[in-house]
């Protein structure tokens, strides 16, 4: 399990390759299925200057590690990776990524979706969009909260 919180940018492709090499090289627990999710700062109408992400340092790491622990046990993962940035992010930049590896694809997909649902609504991050018109805190979406129900 790797959980990384960082201000600096990361290379999602390089992280995916490193993760895959680690989880598939083990002869004992070789995983055949690797799923990744990458979230990117979106700017659909060319207004966004930057996104700012605030977090709760004392809580963020432990909260994410607990989610990853749960997913690893629940779906028998061969490995899991979470990278999440905070601070100021430029449009088009990766915000975060999740990768999961398992013997079969259904487990890798389910674990990645579980981690995304919980990272969205239960990890202490808050996004603010800074545009030419001003700054706005991104509102939580009702369907993100509802997405959690399928895991209970």
């Amino acid at each position: 399990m790797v959980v990384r919180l960082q201000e600096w940018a990361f290379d999602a492709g390089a992280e995916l390759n490193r993760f895959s090499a680690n989880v598939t090289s083990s002869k004992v627990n070789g995983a055949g299925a690797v799923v990744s999710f990458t979230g990117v700062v979106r700017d659909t109408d060319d207004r966004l200057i930057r996104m700012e992400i605030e977090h709760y340092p004392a809580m963020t790491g432990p909260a994410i590690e607990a989610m990853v622990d749960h997913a690893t046990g629940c779906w028998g993962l061969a490995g899991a990776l979470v990278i999440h940035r905070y601070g100021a992010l430029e449009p088009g930049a990766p915000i975060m990524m999740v990768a999961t590896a398992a013997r079969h694809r259904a487990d890798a997909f389910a674990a990645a979706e579980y981690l995304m649902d919980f990272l969205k609504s239960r990890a202490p991050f808050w996004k603010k969009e800074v545009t030419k018109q001003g700054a706005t805190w991104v509102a939580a979406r009702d369907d993100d909260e509802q997405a959690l129900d399928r895991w209970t």
Partner: protein
Amino acid sequence: MLNIVYFAWVRERIGLPREKVETAAATVADLVAELIAREERYAVAFADISALRVAVDQELVGFDAPLAGVREVAFFPPMTGG
């Protein structure tokens, strides 16, 4: 002494990221009532409790959670990570 930390627009409305308070509040809700009574900016930040989330010692809890033995309380809006 209890540490209180604020994030996102809660922090902006109250005007500070953290503070230490002397309190005898038994629950989070009691603490919120004390803060609201203290100053207008707290009343504004806590006006709609359903729009807020709270963690005690870095664990998400309800507003009825007891404060006995707690070292840090955090108030913030619903999370928007990922």
